[in-house]
């Protein structure tokens, strides 16, 4: 058989040189007159091994990584097209510990198939969920999603099925499915990976949502910082439309559903669902007050399902394998799997999909392997720029919506940033305030003005000016922001600030004391 060489074109892999490796392999094939097919797949998510090149040969799939351009000649010399040994040899990718320990439901195909091959998608169980949904009554689809226990993976954790039911029960001449792909949180890249590595699963999930709620039009709002994901989704939508997966008769059924990709313009706050809707309408991305809920009056005032990429991409497997299958993973009220994104100063960074319930310590130490710098872990921020900083003392917290809330934190979009002992937590608290000031939409005073005053007050603490008084002021300000803001930007900025203050008080000591301690 002609060997197939898989080289990811996921932007994380490309950022580490995958395109250059692909070119070098192509050139080498030509010069040596070897026939082989190059497939640009998504990433499996083990970024510490990217660019990870895989060869599908008689021995099955054999991985090599991280591959540098300078390795390419050597790989050919040692016969990597037959899976032979080489210093970059990793063996069967499914047996690489970081990947073998995962439970891949949403990301089952990501990194394995050609993301733009609808045939490959179907061969790997794609479209099964949509076919089952087409044969069902809308209310039954909604019930199945509700019964699966699937909750919004964007951060809020609201039950997906309940949102859908509200839209289904609201009569209107037009309803919309909006996919929130404005993944702006630092440490998160799950949405990007699925859009680049398995775009059809998102399209399928949105089509199922449309059929379930009576919506015929969908929008995917992707941030402009993700040009590769935008390009991939646009091509996938076109392919799905040509194949009749989208259009007036979805897979030949009586249901119509089509969708469009829209690109954001660099505003973090547009990840908040109501400002995203305003942005889609062509307005300033200012947050709307709720009620009315988007499910009742959403995009252009019509009933709208607005879900995160991962929530929608998890729907096909729920429809295919059943609510119980999905619900049986997880713990407490956090059911199913969650793609944890391990990032920052960490040895084994990447995406790790697993059932809810692992402790933070297991994720950081066992899976992540500790820091990249080799220094002790000082803090981990869970849930992006609006998430709390956790010290080692709280590493026994299980990954679960409620357990994190109990510890004054949140899992958010499941991104984890690891910091070593060189991190200055006062600086991180200041950054949280500064970021909020830069990105505030301006609607609520506690957020718009509070974030600016918060930055100034933390600066005064750093300068040793009345530190006790100013710490009390920051605490009081955080309280005002938390309860006086409409959305999570102003409302959750207190999480990183207060957790830094609470767990790392030594970093907030007046400057002379801090200097003496160093």
């Amino acid at each position, binding site marked *: 058989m002609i060997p197939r060489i898989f080289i990811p074109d996921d*932007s*994380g892999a490309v*950022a*580490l040189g995958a395109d250059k490796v692909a070119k070098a392999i192509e050139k080498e094939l030509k010069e040596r007159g070897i026939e082989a097919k190059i497939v640009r797949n998504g990433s499996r998510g083990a*970024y*510490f091994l*990217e660019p990870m090149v895989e060869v599908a040969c008689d021995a099955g799939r054999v991985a090599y990584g991280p591959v540098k351009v300078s390795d390419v000649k050597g790989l050919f010399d040692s016969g990597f097209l037959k899976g032979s040994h080489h210093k970059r040899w990793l063996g069967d990718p499914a047996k690489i510990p970081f990947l073998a320990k995962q439970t891949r439901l949403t990301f089952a195909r990501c990194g394995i198939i050609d993301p733009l091959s609808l045939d490959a998608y179907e061969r790997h169980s794609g479209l099964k969920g949509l076919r089952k949904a087409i044969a069902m009554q809308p209310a039954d689809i909604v019930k199945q999603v509700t019964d699966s226990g699937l909750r919004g993976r964007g951060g809020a954790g609201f039950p997906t099925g309940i949102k859908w039911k509200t839209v289904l029960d609201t009569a209107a001449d037009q309803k919309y499915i909006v996919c929130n792909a404005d*993944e*702006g*949180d*630092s*440490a*998160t*890249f799950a*949405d*990007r990976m699925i859009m680049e590595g398995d775009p059809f699963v998102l399209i399928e999930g949105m089509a199922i949502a449309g059929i379930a709620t009576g919506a015929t039009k969908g929008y995917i709002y992707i941030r*402009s*910082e*993700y*040009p590769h994901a935008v390009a991939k989704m646009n091509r996938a939508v076109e392919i799905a439309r040509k194949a009749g997966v989208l259009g007036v008769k979805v897979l030949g059924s009586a249901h119509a559903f089509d969708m*469009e990709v*829209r*690109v*954001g*313009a*660099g*505003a*973090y706050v547009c990840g908040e669902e109501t400002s995203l809707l305003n*942005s*889609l*309408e*062509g*307005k*300033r*991305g*200012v947050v709307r007050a709720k009620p009315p809920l988007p499910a009742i009056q959403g995009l*252009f005032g019509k009933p709208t399902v607005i879900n995160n990429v991962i929530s929608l991409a998890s729907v096909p497997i729920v429809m295919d394998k059943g609510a119980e299958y999905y619900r049986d993973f997880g713990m407490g009220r956090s059911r199913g799997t969650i793609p944890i*994104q*391990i*990032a*920052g*100063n*960490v040895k084994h*960074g*990447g*995406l790790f999909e697993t059932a809810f319930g692992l402790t933070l310590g297991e994720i950081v130490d066992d899976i992540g392997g500790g820091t990249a710098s080799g220094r002790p872990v000082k803090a981990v921020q869970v849930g*992006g*720029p609006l998430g709390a900083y956790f010290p080692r003392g709280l590493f026994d917290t299980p990954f679960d919506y409620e357990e994190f809330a109990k510890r004054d934190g949140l899992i958010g979009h499941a*991104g984890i*940033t*690891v*910091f*070593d002992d060189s*991190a200055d937590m006062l600086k*991180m608290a200041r*950054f949280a305030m500064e*970021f909020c000031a*830069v*990105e505030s*939409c301006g609607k609520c005073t506690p957020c718009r003005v509070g974030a600016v005053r918060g930055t100034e007050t933390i600066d005064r603490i750093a300068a040793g000016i009345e530190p006790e008084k100013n710490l009390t002021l920051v605490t009081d300000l955080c309280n005002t922001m938390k309860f006086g803001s409409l959305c999570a930007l102003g409302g959750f900025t207190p999480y990183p600030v207060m957790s830094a203050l609470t767990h790392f008080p030594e970093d907030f000591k007046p400057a002379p004391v801090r200097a003496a301690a160093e």
Partner: protein
Amino acid sequence: MAVQPASTEIATRTASIIQEFKALEGPLLPILHGVQGEFGYVPQEALRVIADELNLSRAEVHGVASFYHDYRKEPGGRHVLKVCQAEACQSMGSDATTARIKQLLGIDFHETAKDGSVTLEPVYCLGLCACSPSAMLDGEVIGRLDNEKIDEIVEAVRS
């Protein structure tokens, strides 16, 4: 500096971009993206044409264009370098890499080099958080920034 096209030319080219997107629901952002793609920035003259065509006030269009970080008011450099400043990159020393980039290019964030070669911008997350610190040069992603890669970037924007 890039030569700015005459206002009548801007109006004509903007009008044809508007025609391309006008039929969409909520066409303003796609139009503004189109205008920025065409001119490298969103000229004042274009705002007037967009307002007329979409039956909006010029203030409304200005309000939208000025809300979003992406839309530039004046032309940028021939290259645009975005350097991530978010937490994951900070944990891997982006403060130091950013300082080095600023020093080598001789400009701060939101500035364009005097020779018009490059505009430097901060970005809050490129989704490359497992290969920090990261940057984006004209849409091309770069992970694990180090001195060697920074030198390559500086050379690329200057050539």
